[in-house]
């Protein structure tokens, strides 16, 4: 590794104990004060966690630090020097690298080209030196303990691996300050553990880490100090050793969140769904199958959780049940005793099966339709008056689920893209409730949603289940499954390796089954 940027500072300068100081930062957007007089002081070489709900201002603060935004007021000091970035290049030059929450990769380019995008190495004659970039890339990936081929097309990688490409990109900058904006939101437990080891290694080399996360266990394992933001204001900065996760989440939401357990005490109804010997082939892969010999039942009034690492086949299983997959599967699926074989999601809708997809922005939202249009989409026929759509009837139709799911919106005309992630997700659940489903498939419904909104979604899902829906829920977070599910199925590489009643399920037992070869 070449010299780090902060080593280049002349020794005559007084060395500040702070890698970064942000004093009195204020940032306004039209109609909103995103940051109001926020102060953040980060010691050199520490892991500093920043916690807060979505909209608390974490990402805005980090975008100011990395030069994406300029503050309206306040002072930014990097290594004790007053700094003013006019763009991300300035921040990179000052040794600050940021790994954004939303991946910013060019999917059609190979991995190595993405890592060196904008800083391509050139060899003789000024031509691209692909070999040296690929070699550097391989060595970065071996530091990260992962086996991504630098020549692979980036879009072909799983989300988890794409995140590692972003991390490799930051490492290749030799940054002295690395900002990670929810880096584990798309990672499996194994990948997260690998990332934690990388962070520890970076810290040992003297790098300062700013770490944004919703996951309290990670924050408490990694961080030396924690700063809590709420509604654009600084609430507290504390040493990790002197606080507790409960206290932090309390500061984040401004109230005490009791850890609810929703499972149990729900009356179990008739059998809705019976899956027997379900297999989904995968000819182009050495394993040969995406799913193999899956059998399970789902009853009304029951939440079945599906655990598994990324790539275990959770989404594929739900897609088969919803008729959304392209490949033909074998086995039997019986819905209320009748064998079914959905070839299109439309057929699943008609059979009263609903699915809330994994990637809200890509697979769920219609950015050009307003809140009412997004909610009413699947049940539009009910808004027909004399054969034509009536806007009044449509709003009337959408108002029900918007109210029932507790969507916070300035109105049914509001742009869906202006709502927070949690409220968008409620709109999508509301859309499906209008189809009057009996089976609700939820694919990682709380991904990227803040703590308070998660708790609201749990209450919502529990309430739906009590009304007699059968729910299948996947999640990348085990505590979520343990909170909600009556039974937990564990998938490992496409096979069902455990079916645990809630009473017998623990994080350790689930992880054991999920990693079973």
């Amino acid at each position, binding site marked *: 590794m070449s010299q780090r940027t902060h080593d280049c500072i002349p020794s005559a300068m007084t060395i500040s104990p702070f890698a970064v100081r942000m004093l009195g930062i204020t940032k306004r*957007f*039209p*109609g*909103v004060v*995103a940051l109001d007089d926020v102060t953040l002081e980060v010691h050199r070489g520490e892991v500093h966690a920043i916690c807060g709900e*979505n*909209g*608390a*201002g*974490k*990402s*805005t603060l980090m975008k100011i630090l990395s030069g994406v935004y300029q503050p309206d007021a306040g002072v930014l000091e990097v290594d004790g020097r007053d700094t003013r970035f006019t763009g991300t290049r300035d921040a990179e030059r000052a040794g600050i690298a940021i790994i954004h929450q*939303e991946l910013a990769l060019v999917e059609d380019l190979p991995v190595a080209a993405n890592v060196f995008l904008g800083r391509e190495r050139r060899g003789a004659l000024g031509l691209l030196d692909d070999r040296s970039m690929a070699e550097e890339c391989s060595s970065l990936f071996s530091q990260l303990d992962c086996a991504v081929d630098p020549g692979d097309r980036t879009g072909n990688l799983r989300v988890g691996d794409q995140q590692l490409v972003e991390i490799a990109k930051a490492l290749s900058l030799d940054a002295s300050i690395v900002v990670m904006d929810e880096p584990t939101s798309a990672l499996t437990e194994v990948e997260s553990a690998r990332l934690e080891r990388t962070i520890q290694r970076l810290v040992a080399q003297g790098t300062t880490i700013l770490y944004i996360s919703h996951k309290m266990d990670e924050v408490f394992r990694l961080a030396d100090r924690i700063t809590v933001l709420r*509604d654009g204001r600084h609430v507290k900065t504390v040493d990790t050793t002197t606080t507790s996760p409960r206290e932090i989440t309390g500061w984040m939401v401004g109230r005490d969140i009791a850890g609810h357990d929703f499972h149990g005490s729900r009356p179990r109804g008739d059998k809705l769904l019976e899956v027997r010997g379900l297999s989904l082939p995968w000819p182009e892969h050495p394993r040969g199958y995406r799913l193999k010999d899956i059998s399970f039942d789902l009853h009304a009034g029951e939440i079945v959780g599906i655990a598994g690492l990324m790539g275990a086949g959770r989404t594929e299983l739900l897609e088969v049940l*919803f008729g*959304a997959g392209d490949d033909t599967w074998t086995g039997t699926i019986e819905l209320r005793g009748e064998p079914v074989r959905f070839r*299109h*999601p*439309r057929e699943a*809708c008609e059979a009263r099966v609903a*699915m809330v997809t994994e990637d809200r*922005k*890509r*697979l*769920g*939202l*219609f*950015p*050009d*339709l*307003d809140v009412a*249009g997004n909610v009413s*989409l*699947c049940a*539009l*026929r009910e808004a*027909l008056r004399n054969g*034509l*759509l009536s*806007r009044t009837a449509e709003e009337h139709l959408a*108002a029900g689920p*918007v109210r029932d799911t507790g969507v*916070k*919106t*300035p*109105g*049914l*005309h*509001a*742009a869906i*893209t*202006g*709502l*927070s*992630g949690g*409220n*968008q997700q409620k709109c999508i659940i509301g859309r499906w409730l209008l*189809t009057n489903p009996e089976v609700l498939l939820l694919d990682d419904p709380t991904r*990227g949603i*803040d703590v308070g909104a998660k708790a609201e979604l749990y209450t919502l899902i529990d309430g739906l289940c009590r009304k007699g829906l059968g729910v299948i829920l996947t999640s990348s977070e085990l505590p979520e499954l343990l909170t909600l599910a009556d039974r937990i199925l564990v998938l490992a590489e496409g096979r069902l390796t455990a079916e645990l009643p809630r009473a017998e399920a623990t994080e350790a037992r689930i992880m054991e089954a999920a990693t079973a070869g």
Partner: protein
Amino acid sequence: MTPPNDAHSRRSSEGSPAPQGSAAPRLRRTAWWGLRPAEWALVAAIVVAVLLTGVVDSNHSYFRLPWQSLTDILRNTALLGIFALGATVVIIAGGIDLSSGSMIALSGTIAATTMLALAPKEIMAFKPVGPAVVGVGVLAALLTGFLVGTLHTWLITAVRLPPFIATLATLVGLRSFARALCESCTLGVVGTKSAQINVSDPIFKAIRDNVWIPVAVFALLAVFTWLLLTRTVLGRHIHALGGNEQAARLAGIRTENVKWFAYCFGAMTAALAGLFYVANESVAAPVNQGRGHELNAIAAAVVGGCSLSGGVGTVPGTVLGAIFLRVVIDAVSKIIKTGADVYEGLIVGVVVVIAVTFSQLGALAKGGTRLLPGAIGLCAIPTLALLTGALAAMTAGRNGGIATGVGALFLLGLLRVWESRRSTT
């Protein structure tokens, strides 16, 4: 409905894909009834263009021959508007149809060859062929539109070609097919090859002589399309498909069928327009009829506010876009007098650029973006000055050209200096 909530509007500033600067959840500016602000601006632009032409035109034909000027513009607008509505539906559904110009040629050829086959003597003798034969010809042309739309949908959904490629193939293919069909039919029926077929049935003549027929067809089609897009489930599904195709499929929408409708609607409106082209010119001439007109239709839709990435667009916008394009083209032909058709493509190009730039004026005024940034901006100044200067020289003589070019250079230079000073302060 929940009242606006302060804590919430702050929350939404993050974690949502809303672009910078629109952090608060904005209420949609969509007017479900009436026009949107951008469409009112287009209305104003049309009025300004008409008034300017009336004053600048040295013949003052808008004052001397108002009726003839009006019918000219109406006929041209109706012809363009009919298939621009089809282009609008395709574009909102997230696709593109580059083939409508060739579809116009094919539709006319199909109608003419069908009539030639059914009534060869009458056609060759420029005599009436009778309503039954005309009806069969018209139906054949519309059916061809349906078949071409189906072909597009098949290429796009089953062969999985991008819409641009699929319709680029039919853009070149259909015109060639129409020419071959015209030649082989005339050879087969009459005995000599011909590149065009004269159509002089009184029904077609009546359509040529009565401007209100194409205008009424255009108006009816516009109302139908408007109802379809805003007030039917299919219309909503078209918007959803264009906005997010994968999400639409996962919401249980049969996206292939929606596409099928959109491409058939696009091709059939072009086929309908093709019949009016034949009536107007009393001839089916596949070599040149409708050549390049697909781009005028797309331009009308874009000027009217359609987004080429799909999901966005309105019928009133496209109607106004078509009127605006035709008014500007007419203005130039009035002002230049002779050989104005040479400039038609240039005008369409300039109008599209200006209309789309105009819609971003808000961002430019706020200082969020610069019109002439960096080295590109610097090089764009002489490029634009040369373009305007050359244009002025060709239309207003050498001295006028030099003066206009120098003036443009000076004004653009001022804009550049102003923008740089603003961004440094």
